[in-house]
């Protein structure tokens, strides 16, 4: 349990746990499992304790230790080889979600203890049960006769029972462990998203209370950056842990607000005047689109290093990217009057492009070498978890050069997407073509 907790594993499946031995009032023989359950936040899914133990005393000790015990879809306390121990489970849970919610409550209350989940033995054959029970009693008698004591009792009894039942007890053991693992998996599946949300919530709460100190520490740095480049780097709460995956892909590229204008009528557009129609907005930009797709597919965490303006478009773009799972920790926001990039296009009623204006100046101005040089944390991500870097044609030649040199030094492959035909020469102009590992060209349309 300790190792599971250290590894961040919250649900643990096993056959049975240890408990309080018969005659414990004399021998003080109590399993360390019960203590561990009170101080380690791991949920243990098991089929109770072996019937050779003193089950009522076990329940008392668990209650004394403050460990919640749930019977999973059963009211009785299973006893490993049988479902009827004669004792009842203190609480009952009928779905994995209920158990997951209880675990979240405990996390919210900063509880240190674990939970015990009791899963009944699958398909118990009454005949077998009686057979096994009598084998257990016989084995206990033999243990007594042979003066077997303390921690040697359990292995002796188990081995004797296996012999006496001709291996049936071992088969039963294996099948119940598999069943417990299935239940534990169901619980873990329900727990994971709730836990992630709870963690983010508590991170946010913590950040708010320390915000004052952080901003005063950072402000001299921000002031320097503003003077130099008219922009500030946003090391905000999206750089906090809990990424989708331990692998990451860093995308240096454009994030654009796309504005599509289409006429209502199917008549030809009238020039030099207003035509009634629809204007719709969506988020685009090659770099941003690729990052969104990577976030959707979930095999790695995308970081988008882009530039946005200090305007409503920028705010919305930022929010949208984060909601889609794109990590915006290293995005740069303009502190002067650069607007967020916008692509405004007029289409005719058939969907063909009539004319468009691309206002992408911000990328040439702000996606400069400073974006990499001034962000040490970004450099660390690149050196450690980053599997691949994506560059699109929106970045400046100088940044292309800087990133290429960095990636070459740290053995990170570069994927280049030119964005437009003229930009195909970007790696050549910056003399970095040999640093590009995958050159993707999608400008060849249907013939």
């Amino acid at each position: 349990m300790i190792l599971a907790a250290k590894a961040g594993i919250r649900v643990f499946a096993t056959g049975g746990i240890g408990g309080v031995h018969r005659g414990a009032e004399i021998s003080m023989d109590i399993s360390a499992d019960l203590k561990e359950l009170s101080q380690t936040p791991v949920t243990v899914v098991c089929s109770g304790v072996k019937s050779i133990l003193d089950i009522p005393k076990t329940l008392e000790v668990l209650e004394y230790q403050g460990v919640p015990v749930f019977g999973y879809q059963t009211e009785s306390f299973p006893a490993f080889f049988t479902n009827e121990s004669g004792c009842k489970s203190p609480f009952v849970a009928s779905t994995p979600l209920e158990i997951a919610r209880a675990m979240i409550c405990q996390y919210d209350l900063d509880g240190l203890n674990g939970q015990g989940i009791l899963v009944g033995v699958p398909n118990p054959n009454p005949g077998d049960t009686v057979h096994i029970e009598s084998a257990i009693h016989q084995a206990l008698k033999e243990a007594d006769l042979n003066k077997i004591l303390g921690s040697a009792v359990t292995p002796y009894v188990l081995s004797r029972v296996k012999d006496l039942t001709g291996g049936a007890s071992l088969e039963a053991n294996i099948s119940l462990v598999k069943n417990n693992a299935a239940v534990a998996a169901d619980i873990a599946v329900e727990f994971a998203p709730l836990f992630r949300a709870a963690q983010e919530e508590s991170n946010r709460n913590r950040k708010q209370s320390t915000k004052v100190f952080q901003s005063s520490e950072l402000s001299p740095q921000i002031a320097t950056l503003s003077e130099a480049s008219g922009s500030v780097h946003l090391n905000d709460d999206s750089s906090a842990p809990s990424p989708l995956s331990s692998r990451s892909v860093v995308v240096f590229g454009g994030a654009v607000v796309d504005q599509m204008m289409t006429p209502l009528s199917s008549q030809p557009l009238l020039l030099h005047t207003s035509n009634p129609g629809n204007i719709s907005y969506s988020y685009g930009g090659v770099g941003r689109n690729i990052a969104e797709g990577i976030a959707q597919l979930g095999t790695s965490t995308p970081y988008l290093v882009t530039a946005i303006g200090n305007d409503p478009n920028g705010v919305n773009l930022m929010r949208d990217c984060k909601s889609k799972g794109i990590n915006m920790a290293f995005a740069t926001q303009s502190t002067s009057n650069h607007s967020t990039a916008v692509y405004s296009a007029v289409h005719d009623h058939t969907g063909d492009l009539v004319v468009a204006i691309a206002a992408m100046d911000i990328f040439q101005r702000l996606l400069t070498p400073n974006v990499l040089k001034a962000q040490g944390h970004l450099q660390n991500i690149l050196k450690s978890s980053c599997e691949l870097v994506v560059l699109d044609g929106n970045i400046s030649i100088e940044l292309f050069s800087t990133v290429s040199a960095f990636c070459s030094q740290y053995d990170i492959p570069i994927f280049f997407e030119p964005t437009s035909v003229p930009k195909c020469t970007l790696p050549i102009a910056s003399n970095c073509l040999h640093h590009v590992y995958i050159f993707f060209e999608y400008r060849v349309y249907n013939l």
Partner: protein
Amino acid sequence: MKPNTAELCALMAKCLINDKIPITNRSHVSKILSKYGETSPMNSQTSVSELVSDMRILGSGLLSIMNSKSNRPAPEFRKKSRCVIGKHLLISLGKYGILWIGPSSVIGKDADISITDHISSKHITNTPIENIVNTSGAGDSFCAGLISSLVAADGSGYGPNLLSIHQGMKYAEKSLISTSAVPK
């Protein structure tokens, strides 16, 4: 032929001619340049196979430049923690599929044609899609699909490989039938 296609071919050809690295088929490239360049009218009779074959020539020239200045001992060298072996050129031909030009050691027996000792090429066609809604974002979706597959490949294959290209194409297909650029 759409302007972008001709423009792209002309641009690639120009780069190759201008670069000081010697390429094996310089005369071929010059011919292509005159076919697609500004001085001659765009030939609307160009067939897919002709375009593919021209692209193979231009692409392999580009790739040999990408390989030649490499400071790695061989293009195939790769540290195990990163997901790509060698240098690759992927050209999307829209509905005519993907043209992949890369190291022979990676493309292996799947290659259509070996262009040089080290460079092979494969043309991967896609199944035609009936109900295309919106082509914008298809290329970006392909990239996302390909990259996601590469990164997930736990050491069993350093790509691009056929699997990751197919994953990219699948994701691009989803984008084509969706109104948004990136499929949900």
